[in-house]
């Protein structure tokens, strides 16, 4: 025990001196002294890559080099590229991005002191094989779907959606298969998480069609719901032809006396008796979609048959619900439909690099500007070649220079795209997990061991700090209740205290008798980095003015979790 403590203090010493050497006068970035530099000769040439038909998948690290070469050619000519980010910032970034957690002080130190040039690549692979990868991105998609629900009952499907996606992402299921399962979903929504998009809109065909288009194609065709879109090629009729794939899907309450209330997604086909009755009245059998008449909203509208607007393919009239939805899934996920791969690539790229090829991230299409079209084409072709392997895409993006550059303020439109990464606000669940770790809530709190209390605490927290991930990030702002929570909630104010022996701070104060070391440990704990010289001095000055050491450290602890940096990943 004693030995390990000494070793740890020693590591901090080495660590701090390396940091000091890097930041004072050597003109090197922190990682410059330690980390690997990408080997240019290992990059496959552009010609080879672009001539290769996308049939076999390229290794992520190789694909990443090609992506960077494309970007240098088409987006970064004469651009002022940000330097490669330092190891500590990289580790916090990649861990938050991939598994939704911040590294511990030990992890940061181990990583920074590791001299293996391939350590970033290895860290990415390790994180992708963690079960928390699936959990993190399941929560992301839960938010993507549920923040747009048009019926609050949709929330009933949220827990099963989480379980479903967590399993699929961890098992390496392809995005194509996941999308197909969402489109063809049926059954009890509490058991079948892939019913969530139907449930979020209570089976309303027009809403669901709009969401399928937005989520799986990145095309906002719903604007054509009421009028021909002024800046797009899509016609009103085409939106309704998409909705016409879905008139027979229905959400209905499950009748059961036991257990919580539930709903199920079913196909509503007409039974024989109704079919006969309708035949007598010479109406088509089964439910069909009618495009409303804008001049006469109370009339029934125009009978509209299914046709997919991207490929202009239609299916025979009067098909069953199952066949309609299967056909729709096939058409949406077809290799010949470029938007299916592009929508996913664009979204994940934007989450990782800070800006999409298309912005907003769910507004693509032939009439939109792409800031690096060849790069986008290459990445989406390779994503298809990798059989829509979700982890392949994350690994490729995380290995690019574009991802690993230091963060800068969101660019102005005159500046080059992808010259820097961009700070991202943590999503509600990420922030909750970081706060829980930093304040040691699960070990020192009464909540520990009570799953229900923990779930409630998480939900209450994410209700304040969560946001719709599809929202353009520069439109995202903090709110007063968020600030008040971090300032005053007893969860924070009580757990930054060092009066209880088992509290996080008490342990630090005992372990690190020197103030500078304790402050460094607090920085590592909260922000996964050591303080800059100025910051260390500011803290030193602050502590000098306060007679009680513990009180002063409590203040610094409180301040660090209240910084903007704590709420973001840089």
């Amino acid at each position, binding site marked *: 025990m004693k030995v390990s403590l000494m070793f740890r203090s020693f590591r901090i010493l080495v660590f701090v001196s390396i940091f000091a050497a890097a*930041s004072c006068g050597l003109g090197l970035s922190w990682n410059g002294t330690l980390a690997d530099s990408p080997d240019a000769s290992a990059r496959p040439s552009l010609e080879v890559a672009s001539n290769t038909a996308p049939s076999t998948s390229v290794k992520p690290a190789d694909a990443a080099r090609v992506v960077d070469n494309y970007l240098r050619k088409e987006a970064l000519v004469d651009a002022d590229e940000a330097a490669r980010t330092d190891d500590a910032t990289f580790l916090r970034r990649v861990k938050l991005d991939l598994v939704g957690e911040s590294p511990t002080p030990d992890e940061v130190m181990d990583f920074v002191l590791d001299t293996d040039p391939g350590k970033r690549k290895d860290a990415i692979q390790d994180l992708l094989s963690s079960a928390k990868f699936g959990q993190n991105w399941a929560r992301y998609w839960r938010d993507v779907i549920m923040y*747009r*629900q*048009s*019926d*609050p009952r949709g*929330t009933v499907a949220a827990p099963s959606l989480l379980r479903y996606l967590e399993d699929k992402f961890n098992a390496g299921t392809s995005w194509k298969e996941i999308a197909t399962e969402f489109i063809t979903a049926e059954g009890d929504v509490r058991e079948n998480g892939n019913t969530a998009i139907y449930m*979020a809109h209570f089976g309303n065909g027009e*809403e669901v069609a*709009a*969401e399928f288009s*937005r989520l799986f194609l990145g095309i*906002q065709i*719903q*604007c054509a719901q009421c009028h021909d879109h002024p800046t797009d090629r899509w016609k009103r009729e085409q939106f309704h032809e998409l909705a016409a794939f879905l008139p027979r899907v229905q959400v209905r309450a499950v009748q059961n006396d036991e257990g919580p209330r539930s709903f199920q997604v079913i196909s509503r086909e007409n039974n024989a008796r109704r079919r006969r009755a309708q035949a007598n009245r010479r109406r088509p059998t089964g439910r069909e979609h009618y495009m409303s008449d804008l001049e006469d909203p109370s009339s029934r509208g125009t009978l509209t048959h299914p046709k997919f607007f991207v490929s202009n393919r239609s299916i025979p009239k009067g098909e069953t619900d199952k066949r309609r939805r299967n056909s729709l899934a096939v058409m949406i996920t077809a290799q010949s439909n470029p938007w299916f791969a592009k929508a996913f690539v664009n979204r994940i790229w934007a989450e990782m690099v800070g*800006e999409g090829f298309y*912005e*907003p991230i769910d*507004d693509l299409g032939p009439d939109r500007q792409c800031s690096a079209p060849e790069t986008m084409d290459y990445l989406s072709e390779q994503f298809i070649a990798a059989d829509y392997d979700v982890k392949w895409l994350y690994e490729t993006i995380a290995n690019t220079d574009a991802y690993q550059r230091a963060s800068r*303020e*969101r*660019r102005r*439109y*005159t500046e080059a795209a992808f010259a820097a990464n961009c*700070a991202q606000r943590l999503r509600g669940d990420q922030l909750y997990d970081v706060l829980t770790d930093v304040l040691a809530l699960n070990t020192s709190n009464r909540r520990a061991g009570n799953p229900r209390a923990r779930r409630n605490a998480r939900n209450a927290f994410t209700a304040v700090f969560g946001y719709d991930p599809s*929202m*353009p990030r*520069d*439109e995202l*702002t*903090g*709110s*007063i*209740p968020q*600030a*008040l*929570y971090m*300032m*005053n*909630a*007893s969860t924070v*104010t*009580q757990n930054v205290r060092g009066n209880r022996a088992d509290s996080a701070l008490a342990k630090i104060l005992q372990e690190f008798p020197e103030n500078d070391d304790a402050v460094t440990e607090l920085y590592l704990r909260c922000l996964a980095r050591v303080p*800059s*010289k*100025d*910051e260390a*001095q*500011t*803290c030193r000055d*602050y502590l000098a003015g306060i007679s009680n050491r513990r*009180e002063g450290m409590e*203040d610094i602890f409180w*301040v660090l979790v*209240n*910084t*903007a*940096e704590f*709420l*973001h990943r840089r």
Partner: protein
Amino acid sequence: MKLHRQTHVRLRRGSVVGRRDFLRGISAASLAAGTLGWHDLLTSQAADLQNRGMACILLWMQGGPSQFETFSPKPRHANGGETKAISTSVPGIQIAEHLPNLAEVMDDVAIIRSMTSREGSHPRATSLLHTGYLPTASIKYPTFGSLVTQQITNEACELPSFVRVGNPGRNRTSAGFLGVDYDAFAVTRSGQPPANSRLGVGENRFRRRLNLLDQLQTSGTDGQSDGYVQDHLALYRKASKMILSPQMEAFDISKESQQVRESYGEGNFASGCLLARRLVESGVTFVEVVLNGWDTHQDNFTRVKELGGQIDQPMAQLIRDLKERGMLDSTLIIWMGEFGRTPKINARTGRDHFPRAFNVALAGGGVRGGQVIGATNAAGDEVTDRPVGVTDLFQSFCKSLKIDADAENMSSVGRPITVVDGGEPVNELFS
């Protein structure tokens, strides 16, 4: 330039993707709160209060209040059930027996008995009656409180301009595409201060911490002082200024005399109404007070009688109180829920959802009291005179609050959305 009360978002120069109409923040105000007490403030602002802009109090009856047991009794028809009608201060206007105090202030109340809509599900109708639009996946329409505070706001007020009192549960409506800046500031229980508004440490220590936070974020960060840090600093200045402000006393109804508190009656809704008056008096633009429990599929008569008891005295006293303080003309009070209830009484002596004909009550804000707009037939199942749609109702709110209903906001998909889409104000309300 119009300023909003809550956070101030930096206008990002020439941002590639920014589409929303951000308002530039005011310059960083000092943290030091004034030394004036509540009464000093009131006196010093007395003149301002006289000329201040419009305010709105929405008394939201979650679940769909029965029109027959509130403002549209039908004692002479089987559909009216056992509920009796009582006379009011206005000859010819009768309301349900559960509302004797409101009957006394009927001179100031206008009833619309011919509200009509087609939406009979709680979530969708709650959304419709809060936003004026049916909910969609692609566009999140802002709730009325957000729309109002975005359009009119009181700049001298350090409190949030939109406060929601009570817990609407999962039927909570939000600022939608207007963004969190315009979201309601929630007070879950009216007798308690807003969540996390009390300092976790002494005030001196809190200020000391804020100073250190400022110092660490503005210096020595290697030029990392990005936009998001600037936004964060501005937000913290705003939030801390608010909780250190003497105006926060407005949230503390125990500052009212016992006599005043008693005049509003007992219960959460009563203290919510008193809180609403205090907040509006302090310059808050929009207060929504939520009362749950109106979904009376069973046992309608007992339950609505009890609910009527919860609203009658507080709402009547709110009207009187605002009038005595000279604030009624500039404060619109809206009483409504998401729909009405079926004329036919079901087998469990309950009433089910009925959007086709329901009622809304309005007071203040230039509304001429003592009148009834519209009518239904004897059975109460059809509007027979002067149907008022939801957009007509919202147009009327805008007219009262002097808001341009045709003003456009940009939605996140880049489509302009008017405050109200169509409809005509019910002009009789104001004549």
